[in-house]
């Protein structure tokens, strides 16, 4: 769960995504001095044309990390919605932009008031994708008999520590189909599937809803706790992490988990109650945030989307492993590990830019 992908080019404030396609067409990323800073981070040389695995077409984790460093060096641009760099498409010309990137022109013009034909688009890394998820086998089966998972909520492990763009298609079409077929087969085969433990758990979950409805004291708000969670996850478990930042966020999240017990529903209706839905979602997100932090704390190395400033090297000896977080009610999850099975591709040095042919 410690691997969370940042997409390097989102709009500030809204986080609206500016597709990799705009860099694929030849868009360039520049800092406040108009300099293509990616060449300083092992991604150059800066050819004028787009080249796979180099510069702007480097991997998402490296690009997001480069932004972080530019930001530390004070070479990003300050805006009311946070620091940005510029994605410049102007040299592509109006015709090409309208033909290949009409949606980007529309999004940038509407949401940040910048027409990319005439001005560079302000962008920054935005949280994009959770590589971890519910542990499944290649038939989308989870450890709970009869429960299947597929898509972003699942972790069938086609992504590793740094997902490639478009892999969701595979996750949804291939493993979604497997999950559906598997579930249908199971339903056909088993006439009655009375799992007493599961039913008891269901009843307990039902009471979770009841408790929220009945709660009167406390007065914590869902929106307030959610904001605090976002802030601490961004600052403590974001693009770069340290023991100290993660521990700080861990303490904040434990506090938020405690305060969640005081969430009061204003909406008591049984019809389309989004106050209830948001409270339940927050409950689940608190658990997930805990799993991200605790597995990130335990992984004392840097790999893909998990970068530790206090453990900068990748350590295959100790950590060529999947972290497995196990839920413990009301507390931090426990972590154990499973070895990564290497099939066709041996783990190697990740080399980009000029050195790569």
């Amino acid at each position: 769960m410690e691997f969370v992908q940042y997409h390097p080019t989102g709009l500030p404030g809204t986080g609206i995504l500016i597709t990799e396609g705009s860099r694929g067409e030849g868009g360039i990323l520049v800092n406040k001095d108009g300099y293509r800073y990616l060449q300083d981070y092992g991604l150059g040389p800066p050819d004028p044309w787009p080249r796979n695995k180099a510069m702007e077409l480097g991997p998402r984790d490296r690009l997001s990390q480069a932004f972080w460093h530019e930001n530390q060096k004070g070479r990003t641009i300050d805006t009311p919605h946070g620091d940005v760099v510029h994605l410049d498409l102007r040299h592509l010309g109006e015709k090409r932009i309208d033909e290949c990137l009409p949606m980007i022109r529309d999004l940038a013009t509407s949401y940040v008031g910048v027409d990319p034909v005439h001005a560079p688009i302000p962008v920054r890394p935005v949280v994009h994708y959770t590589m971890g998820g519910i542990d499944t086998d290649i038939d989308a089966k989870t450890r709970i008999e009869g429960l299947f998972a597929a898509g972003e909520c699942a972790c069938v492990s086609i992504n590793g520590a740094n997902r490639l763009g478009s892999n969701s298609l595979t996750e949804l079409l291939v493993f979604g189909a497997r999950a559906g077929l598997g579930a249908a087969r199971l339903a056909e085969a088993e006439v009655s599937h009375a799992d007493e433990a599961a039913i008891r758990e269901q009843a307990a979950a039902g009471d979770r809803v009841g408790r929220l409805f009945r709660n009167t004291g406390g007065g914590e708000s869902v929106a307030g706790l959610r904001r605090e969670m976002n802030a601490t996850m961004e600052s403590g478990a974001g693009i770069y992490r340290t023991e100290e930042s993660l521990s700080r966020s861990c303490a904040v999240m434990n506090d938020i988990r405690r305060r969640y017990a005081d969430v009061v529903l204003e909406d008591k209706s049984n019809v389309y109650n989004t106050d209830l839905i948001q409270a339940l979602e927050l409950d689940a997100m608190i658990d997930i945030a805990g799993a991200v932090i605790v597995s990130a704390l335990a992984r004392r190395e840097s790999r893909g989307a998990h970068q530790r400033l206090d453990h900068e090297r990748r350590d295959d000896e100790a950590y060529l492993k999947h972290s497995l977080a196990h839920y413990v009610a009301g507390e931090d999850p426990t972590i154990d590990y499973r070895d990564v099975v290497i099939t066709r591709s041996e783990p190697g040095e990740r080399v980009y830019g000029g050195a790569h042919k």
Partner: protein
Amino acid sequence: MNERHVDLEILRYDPETDEEPAFQTYRVPCQEDWVVLDAVNYVKDVLDRTLSYRWSCHMAVCGSCGMMINGEPMLSCKAFVRDMPDRIRIEPLANFPIERDLVVVTDDFMDKLASVKPYLIPREEKAIEDGAHVQTPAQLKKFKQYTLCINCTLCYAACPQYAHDQNFTGPAALALAHRYNLDSQDVGRGAREDVVASNAGIWECSFVGACSDVCPHEVDPAGAIQQTKIASTVDYFMGLLTPERDR
């Protein structure tokens, strides 16, 4: 950043407690770059947790945040507060039953979408070993515009014909049928004809064009319906001339 106070008049309705829908007004401090959805989210997060509405992407691609905004069907995530007066009236999409507050029941629309068989009906199944399905850019261009529909149902909320007769298959579903009919990989036009060319289908449309005016992705359902009318008319006369022709 500049802040401006805007009064949102939101139509509220909870079937468990309310006889009928009624407006409730909220004063919201809006940022310069906000869309109406941001203002509604402010109400939900700060002023009133009981307000229900749908949204997801905040970037005009999921199609879930449609509302009547000052009487016009719009995506609330693409409707900018800076373009609006100081009082904004927000109601659930017209022509649909209200489920709760700004949430409408879309079952009828979902049924209509399914009724036009919105999927490829190929001439013959092709095995994976037989390679890719090839389509030229020119073949794609024929229907690409109609693939951009996000099922936001703004066109149903704008359509006077659907308001008048809910049997009408309606703009988005007919445009989607047209999309598949135009696809070089598809031979399903005959199979769709029952629904598309029925009385409740294309012939019901009186070509007001309101659907195309409100479409956030310029799909032009009105144009699709007119093109389908022409194609169906040609089919009809071809059918008279060559009655044994297999459709």
